[in-house]
């Protein structure tokens, strides 16, 4: 398994699909582990049955996994549902999403569940005029449940649906994310034409589970998969792609290019002054800067070695109206996923707050 993840870290991100299917066929016994640990780019295959022009928008959806209904409604002492929870979960997402450089998310996928992970494989379909993402999160056998109508397509008998509270949460979350998506991903017509091809896929999975002493455990796993290609006469094709947690250090590959061959002016300088040049002399700015309103809100941690010790950070951000005991980020899946564990005081986030 470690070897498989090692390979996934090295294969070109544009070959993720091929690589994962190759691994699956080589190690069928690891089928589930592989699928749950490797995020794949989302595919948008439009079957536009109802309307001719597919929406140019990315899809932003929230799924609740029906088979977990029992767990959630059964074991939870908290009342799940209501705007409070959405706001709360959304707050956590905001910490990650707004701070992370998530560009055009073709789809956001949210899942609210306890303890398990599912693989994502996304298509899109039409449901009463509305597209929805087909993925492991809403799949049952060969059918997929629409988050809009709560129906399975094709229809299935004897399947699990989210409980009423969960369904309510799902509807509400989809409303919230519809607005979020309008705000961030409104597509302007008439591109500036810098981009030849580009994709931004992001998956955010939130796990929420009650722990002892009335505390809750939040776990957010975000993956961003980006690829872009520019094409122009002077520089031929320029293709960058990758998946990474949080910051996109494309500056790193740039630094590498500069160490391969010195840029002209520096090479000359080098000859004249005998000064040696290394990429560290030049400041490589992160290409995407976070918008950070409130420096206390979140502190992203320094990077640590891949696959070795998990990243750890302890901060005590004082959020207005919310307090966190700690914000611990750690690296669960070294290749692509980042994991954010947020423990919150239930006294602040408990049912009274939830149902407000």
């Amino acid at each position, binding site marked *: 398994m470690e070897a498989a993840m090692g390979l996934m870290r090295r294969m070109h991100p544009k070959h993720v699909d091929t690589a994962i299917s190759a691994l699956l066929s080589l190690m069928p016994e690891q089928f589930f582990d592989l699928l749950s640990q490797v995020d794949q780019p989302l595919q948008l295959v439009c079957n536009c049955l109802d309307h001719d022009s597919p929406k140019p928008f990315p899809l932003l959806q929230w799924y609740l996994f029906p088979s977990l209904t029992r767990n959630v409604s059964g074991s939870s002492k908290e009342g799940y549902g209501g705007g409070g929870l959405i706001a709360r979960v959304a707050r956590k997402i905001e910490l990650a999403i707004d701070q992370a450089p998530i560009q055009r998310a073709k789809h956001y996928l949210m899942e609210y569940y306890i303890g398990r992970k599912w693989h994502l494989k996304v298509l899109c379909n039409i449901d009463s005029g509305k597209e929805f993402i087909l993925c492991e999160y809403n799949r049952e056998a060969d059918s997929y449940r629409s988050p809009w109508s709560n129906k399975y397509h094709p229809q299935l008998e004897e399947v699990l649906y989210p409980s009423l509270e969960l369904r309510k949460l799902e509807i509400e979350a989809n409303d919230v994310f519809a607005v979020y998506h309008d705000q961030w991903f409104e597509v302007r017509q008439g591109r500036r034409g810098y981009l030849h091809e580009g994709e931004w896929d992001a998956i955010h999975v939130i796990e929420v589970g009650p722990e002892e002493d009335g505390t809750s455990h939040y776990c957010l796993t975000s993956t961003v998969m980006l690829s872009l290609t520019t094409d122009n006469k002077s520089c031929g094709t320029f293709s*960058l792609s990758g998946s990474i947690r949080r910051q996109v250090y494309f500056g790193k590959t740039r630094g590498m290019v500069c160490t391969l061959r010195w840029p002209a002016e520096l090479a000359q300088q080098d000859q004249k002054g005998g000064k040696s040049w290394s990429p560290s002399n030049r400041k490589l700015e992160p290409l995407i800067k976070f918008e950070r309103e409130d420096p206390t809100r979140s502190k992203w941690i320094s990077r640590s070695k891949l696959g070795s010790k998990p990243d750890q950070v302890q901060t005590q951000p004082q959020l207005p109206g919310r307090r966190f005991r700690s914000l611990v980020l750690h690296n669960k899946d070294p290749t692509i996923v980042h994991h954010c564990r947020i423990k919150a005081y239930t006294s602040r986030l408990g049912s009274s707050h939830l149902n407000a």
Partner: protein
Amino acid sequence: MADEQSPDSELSDDQKKEIAKWFLINAPAGEIQYVAKDVMAILKDDDIYHSAALEAFPEYNKSHMICLELPDRSGDVIVSSFGEIDKNKYLDPRTAQVATIDHVKQVCTEVRPAADEELPSPYIEEFRFALDAEVMKYVNDTYPKGVCSVYCANGKDVEGPGFDFEVVVVISAARNSPQNFCNGSWRSVWNIEFKDEEQSLVVRGKMQVGAHYFEEGNVQLDSQHECKESTLFQSPEDSATTITNIICRHETEYLASLEVSYLNLPDTTFKDLRRKLPVTRTLFPWHNTRQISLARDITKELGIGN
């Protein structure tokens, strides 16, 4: 649950080998040994791995134009199809030696002087030698770890004026620092056709740059560019200077344009993917989404705005 059926039948050994080969060949620059280790661990079958490695490594080594030190430390040999004599033997034209390569270990095991029929004629060698000297000077000045080689690709037995021939300049620079999670390579191949009748040279270049950054992720740059230019057929020395200037100019321009591409990323290219701020130019009001959706619904309902 839906996922009971795991993938069907067992793969045949040939299929496994093909998969192993695919992984090896697609390894990023300088990382094939790491990939090989992982592939071996997954296959759990040394025979299949070895037969895959035997086929994949030569292909990878040649396409990445890796450079290996000669055992007598007299220089480096670039493993490329231009210097290939047979599967394991590669010519180093500068030292006029033939190196025997262990592809899988990526080392040079043996070296012998090249036979006369493996080398170009004195007439061609004059052009090749002059160009090699010029290009080497250029590469030493511009590439921190660059290696170059000049081969005769066509017409190596041409004895004097009156015939066309072709030489190839190969520049390969790699920089691997796995401890910093970063590897990269620069490869450029310049074909120069000496056209006797037209008394012209046609220079065609192909540059490929790759970089892999994999700390907590997997980000890869892939970039390539091709160009073409012609010039006059001159004496070996003058041709060498002209060709090297052409190469230098194109490579400098290319690097500069890569820089421009990077600089354009945050301000232009990324903006084509996603806004820097929401439409409202304020951060998303998570606590107050209803207001926005209400406003949106009203706008839609009344058919105003858009």
